[in-house]
């Protein structure tokens, strides 16, 4: 049976400024119910301001819900102590690579998390080396982070989370500032972490091509979950996605508009589907 890792129950969340009553602030999240299972790769989509980053920050107890409960592996995020315990289980990677690197040498940066957890130095050494190998940055372990590309910096940030041996990693638009190669590097790393290391992944993204690579896609709008399904079901509904300011990957849209029944999610299957649409290949 699938084991629940994160359980979000009747959760609402409001940002409110000093002097403003909590009740009058418009909620960023309204009555969310969501379970994330161990080993899943979940993508979260939604336009700017839809509440997806707020949801991400509730998953590792950066925020506590205004109402409702968030439980991670049996721990409820309702106290400082529990928050610390949750952050040992759920790590986070943010959008801007320059805002999350703290050390002046790559391997020191990766060691920062486990050091804070009070891990034994020999064990830190072992974890740092293995995490850097996991993200293919071991050869650059003694570099200065500011000399790395954006994709390399994001992989260092991911290694920092791996070295903390969290069960789950939440990534909030980790590729928004990267070039195409940097994006591919980060996506490959995320998929490897999920498939080979069994780490649960929650990926918040604006790139539909990234969401199609997940096992499950959640669509948010106005602080609510609009859809929660497999990528092929989600991306076969262009109208729903467009109504929420989203889009479908180009190959998917092309096949749908040609009336091809099967939902294609990548370039290769798109080419195959169009070949048969045109009446078989030419060879």
């Amino acid at each position, binding site marked *: 049976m699938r084991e629940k890792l994160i359980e979000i129950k009747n959760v609402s969340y409001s940002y409110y400024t000093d002097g403003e009553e909590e009740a009058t602030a418009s909620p960023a999240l309204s009555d969310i119910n969501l379970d994330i299972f161990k080993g899943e790769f979940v993508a979260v989509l*939604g*336009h*700017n*301001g*839809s509440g997806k980053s707020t949801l991400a920050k509730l998953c590792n107890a950066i925020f506590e819900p205004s109402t409702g409960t968030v439980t991670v592996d049996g721990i409820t995020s309702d106290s400082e102590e529990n928050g610390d315990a949750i952050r040992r289980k759920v790590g986070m990677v943010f*959008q801007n690579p320059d805002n999350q690197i703290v050390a002046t040498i790559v391997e020191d940066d990766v060691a920062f998390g486990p050091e804070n957890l009070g891990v034994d130095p020999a064990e830190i050494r072992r974890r740092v080396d293995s995490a850097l190998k996991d993200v293919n940055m071991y050869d650059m372990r003694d570099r200065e982070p500011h000399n790395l*590309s*954006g*994709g390399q910096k994001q992989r260092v940030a991911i290694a920092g989370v791996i070295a903390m041996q969290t069960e789950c990693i939440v990534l909030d*638009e980790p590729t*928004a*500032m*990267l*070039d*195409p*190669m*940097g*994006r591919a590097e980060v996506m490959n790393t995320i998929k490897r972490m999920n498939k080979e290391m069994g780490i649960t992944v929650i990926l918040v993204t*604006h790139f*539909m*091509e990234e969401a199609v690579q997940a096992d499950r896609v959640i669509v948010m709008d106005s602080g609510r979950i609009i859809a929660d399904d497999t990528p092929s079901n989600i991306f076969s509904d262009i109208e729903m996605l*467009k109504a929420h*300011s*989203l*889009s479908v*990957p*180009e*190959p998917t*849209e*092309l096949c749908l*508009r*040609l009336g091809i029944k099967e939902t294609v999610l990548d*370039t290769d299957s*798109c*080419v195959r589907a*169009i*070949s048969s*649409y*045109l*009446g078989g*290949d*030419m*060879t």
Partner: protein
Amino acid sequence: MNPFLEIKNVSYSYMKNTAQQVNAVNNVSLGIDRGEMVGIIGHTGSGKSTLVSLFNGLLKPSLGTVYVDGKDIWENKETLRESRFNVGLCFQYPEYQLFEETVRKDIAFGPKNMKLDDAEIERRVLRAAELAGVKPKHLDVSPFDISGGEKRRAAIAGVMAMEPDMLVLDEPAAGLDPRGRSDLIEMIKQYRERTGSAVVLVSHSMEDIARATERVIVINNGEIALDGSVDYVFAHEEELKSMGLNIPEVTKVFHRLKELGFDVPPDVYSVDRAVDILTSLAERRKSDGK
């Protein structure tokens, strides 16, 4: 006639004459005409942001000359000042640079620096706000009280208000959702059509470059690797890949179909056009009995 912006044998090095010297731009020459719509692509660290910072003297070339409107911008203080107003540069995440009490004051910052009179400043603020899609009701609110996408437009309006002959935008759509991204790119196309200003768009999105620009310059290792029409540049799929870049997904599909022997053109950049071509090809093949 000389191009509006002309760069002759320009090089730029960071940490010059030290062991860490990095040659970010290497002996680059290029010209951009008035009214041109140019895309610049290149991987992170390729030198494209350094290159555009040389366009209006934010960086001084280590070697070579930059001409704006026929004048060497480094000739004296006055030519340098003029180039700042003639070439408007808008950096990535420009909303982080908003600082005034109101959106109106923020947009007015550039024109004020140009020592224009109040009536002219007001005219420019309203025009730029309209061009950039800043809502009139937002002009008198704090830039910190509007949404991220609205802040982005307010910041871009601030550059447009200088009414430059060339507007350079570095990743203007980064971090926006798909609708926000396509709306912003559409706004930039409209801006160029309405003002006749040259626009240089730096982007990691091959789809945006293909959709919005007419000429594409590819920067790799501080040099110009390719420079030509959208069709010319995106025909070089393998070279682009070797430089850490890509071509639009729908274009990739058409290249593959062509390789399989189907009679399709290579220069397809939008799903709309792709649907038209494939539907009529399917009909043709059916009536040919294939």
